[in-house]
Each structure stands twice: as structure tokens, then as C-alpha cells.
């Protein structure tokens, strides 16, 4: 390993790192919004919409992001629908992540004990008040560990953006390998780049899970 090569590459990787972060941020934010909508629609059993979103969830969960991206980026334009690489990446991440986030939220909502809903009813809360004061606050905090796990998962998935020529971390490293043949140095910078984002998140996740298991969120 040649450290001066690693050092020279830092500015390029910094840029790539920021792109990875930026796209992850928008993708995850979008996924959370989609996830909330989907989980609410399904929890409150909104007719029709519930079925449509159910079909979306199945498509999203049962196909790889790579193909989803190929589709958005390479195939859709053939049908006259074209968005930029970055927009394709973020849309792909939202399409994939939305269903995962929905599952995380649904897990939290279903994790609220039935007795909580019943005792809310027993003191006369309306359905909406029940959601507002009992189900959502408890359900959302129950779903935090699953959401954190999804965040890590989705950030890792951005590595696939390389196939649509977005100069994020993976694309940058592969480029360095292909053009300058600095394989070891490129892979080193790449792993460091992801580690900086993911290790703190992974520690946070472990902590959240332990907290959830110890029941600080519960009774």
C-alpha cells in the first residue's frame, strides 16, 4: 500500500463521500415519508389505497435495487421518461427503502399492546385521539431500532449507484482501479469512506436495540 497515493486521493474521495451522504440523506428521507404513508394507510386499512400500496410493497421488496435502477435510468427513457442519474439514484432508493421503512413502522405500530388501545378506548378517546396520544408515540418509538437498521442498509445500497455513473464512493474507487491501477489504495479509501459513516451508525443501532429490549420504551 502506497500512502502517498491514498493521500493524493483524499480530495476526490471527499467529494465522493459527500455525494454518498447527500444521496443517502434524500433517499432515506423520502423512504421514511413513503414508509410512514404506507404504514398508516395499511394500519388504518384505508380502502383501495391499501391494496395499491400493498402491490408496491411486494414489487419493492422482491426485486433488487440494481434492476430497479437499470429500469429507471436505462429503460424508462426508452418510453420517454427521463430523469438525471442522481434523481434516478434517489428515486431508486426511495422505491426500495419505502417498503422497508413501512415494515419498520408497521412493526412498531403492531407492537403497541392491545391493552393500550383498549384502555385508551375505555377512557373515551376517539380513534384519532387514540392514534395521536397512544398508538403513534408508542409505536414510533418501538420502531426506532428497525428504522436505524434500515438507514444502515440503505446507505450501503447507495454503492450500487455506481452502475448509473454517479461519482459516489464505489464509482470513484472503481474508477481509480480501472484507470490508475491503484487497487489496494482505492479499496482502502473506499472501505474507510463507508466505515466513517456506518460504524457510528452501527454502534448507535446496537445501543438503540439494547434500550428497546430493556424496555425503556415500554411499561
Amino acid at each position: 500500500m502506497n500512502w502517498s497515493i491514498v493521500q493524493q486521493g483524499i480530495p476526490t474521495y471527499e467529494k465522493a463521500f459527500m455525494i454518498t451522504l447527500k444521496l443517502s440523506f434524500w433517499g432515506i428521507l423520502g423512504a421514511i415519508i413513503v414508509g410512514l404513508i404506507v404504514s398508516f394507510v395499511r394500519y388504518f386499512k384505508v380502502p383501495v389505497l391499501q391494496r395499491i400500496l400493498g402491490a408496491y410493497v411486494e414489487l419493492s421488496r422482491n426485486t433488487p435495487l440494481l434492476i430497479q435502477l437499470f429500469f429507471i435510468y436505462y429503460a424508462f427513457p426508452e418510453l420517454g421518461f427521463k430523469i438525471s442519474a442522481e434523481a434516478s439514484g434517489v428515486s431508486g432508493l426511495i422505491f426500495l427503502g419505502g417498503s422497508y421503512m413501512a415494515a419498520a413502522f408497521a412493526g412498531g405500530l403492531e407492537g403497541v399492546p392491545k391493552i393500550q388501545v383498549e384502555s385508551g378506548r375505555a377512557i373515551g378517546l376517539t380513534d384519532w385521539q387514540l392514534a395521536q396520544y397512544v398508538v403513534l408515540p408508542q409505536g414510533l418509538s418501538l420502531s426506532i431500532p428497525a428504522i436505524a437498521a434500515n438507514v444502515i442498509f440503505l446507505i450501503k445500497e447507495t454503492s450500487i449507484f455506481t452502475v448509473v455513473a454517479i461519482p459516489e464512493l464505489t464509482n470513484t474507487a472503481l474508477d481509480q482501479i480501472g484507470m490508475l491501477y491503484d487497487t489496494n489504495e482505492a479499496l482502502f479509501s473506499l472501505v474507510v469512506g463507508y466505515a466513517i459513516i456506518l460504524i457510528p451508525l452501527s454502534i448507535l443501532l446496537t445501543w438503540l436495540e439494547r434500550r428497546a429490549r430493556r424496555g425503556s420504551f415500554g411499561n
Partner: protein
Amino acid sequence: MANELLTVTHLVKNYGKKEVLHDINFTVEKGSVTVLLGPSGSGKSTLIRCLNGLEEFHGGQINFEDQTITPGFKKWQPLRQHIGMVFQSYDLFPNRTVIDNILLGPLKVQKRDKNEALAQARQLLKEVQLSEYENAYPRQLSGGQKQRIAIVRALTLNPDFMLFDEVTASLDPEMVRGVLEVIEGLAARKMTMLVVTHEMNFAKQIADKVLFLENGKIVEESSGHQFFEQPQTQRAQDFLSSMDF
């Protein structure tokens, strides 16, 4: 009779194809304590839950105050302010403090004045000797304390009728007494109550009327005194003798 708060007539309830309550008939007089006894699985919880709409029922009717309730009735929500209920499992909201648990109903459902509701809540907390826990979270309380708070939460809505479903069944034995004393206090103040319990001494002490349920039918209905001294049916006799070892 003008003195009846609740009348249940020919009530039927199914879970799917299984009929778990068959032709239930009884009345609850204002200011009286009715105790519901019966073996496990006989339908006590189901019956009590039908009375505030947590379960649907499928036949017969319930008259509560001036309301007539028939199967498919939808407007339970406003009615529930008049019917308090406390469950076996601790059912406080873990994400809210004791006082927030208590005030949720009065403020959000009844839209009452905050100061007035708070004053009432504090008074009741004092009566159950838990004033200092006003700002605690449920997880900081013992089981017995949680159940007393749950009773206060129900009472702060000023209900006309209280339902208790084995509220001491999950408690450590030494915690039981404190909770039962609170209920006794309510009885002394003529709160109308329907109580499911397995504490026979307590039932004996408190019951104006006993309903003995088995397999979803009321097999014996008598005054508290009579039930414990001279049970009419063989089944009730067996039940009572199995209870004291």
C-alpha cells in the same frame, strides 16, 4: 324501576362460530356493587367488555341510563366517559407521566378546564396515597401503585359506573390489599360497580349481588350474603370449596 342503572337482556356474544355468552340477563342498581364470579374461561371478561363496547355483541340489548344499545351500536365513544374500566394487566400509557395519564381523558375527551381537572386529579391521588408520584412514569411504579393510578384515571372522568376486571390478579400478594381498599372506599361512597375478582374474602365483604357465570350462562344470581353462606347450585358450591384450600 327507576333505580336501575344498567339492564342487560338476552345478551348473546359469539367469537366466530363459538357462542361464548348465551342469553345473559341481569340488572345493576344504582349505588350497588355486583360481583361477577365464575371459573376461568366462563366469559366474565367477555361480558364486562361487552358493557363498554370493547367487544361487539350479537343479540339482545343493553340499557344504560336512558340509552338503548342493540347489536351493531356504534356510538360507544361518548358513552365511555360514563363507564370507567380497569383491567387486569397494567394499562397505563408508558409514554406519559402519571398526571398526564390521568388528565388525558378530562382534557382531550371532556374538554374540561385544566385547573379544575388538575385539582380533582390531585385530590384523588391523595386519596389513594400516591400524591408524590404525580410526575413519575409508570415504569417507576410498582404493580399495585399502577393499578391505583389506573383507578384514579378512570374516576377523574366522573363515571356513573365502574367495571373492574380482576384488577389484582397480576399483583404480588402484598400489593393486593392497597388496591382492594381503594375499591372498598368507592363502594362505601356508593359508586355503582361491577367487579370480577378471584379474591373470595374481598368479594364476600363487598358484594351486594353476586352473578355466578359458567360456560357463558348465569347459573346463579343471588345476594352477596346468600351466595357465600348458602349457594344454591351444586356448581357454585364446588367453586367456592375449590377456592379455599
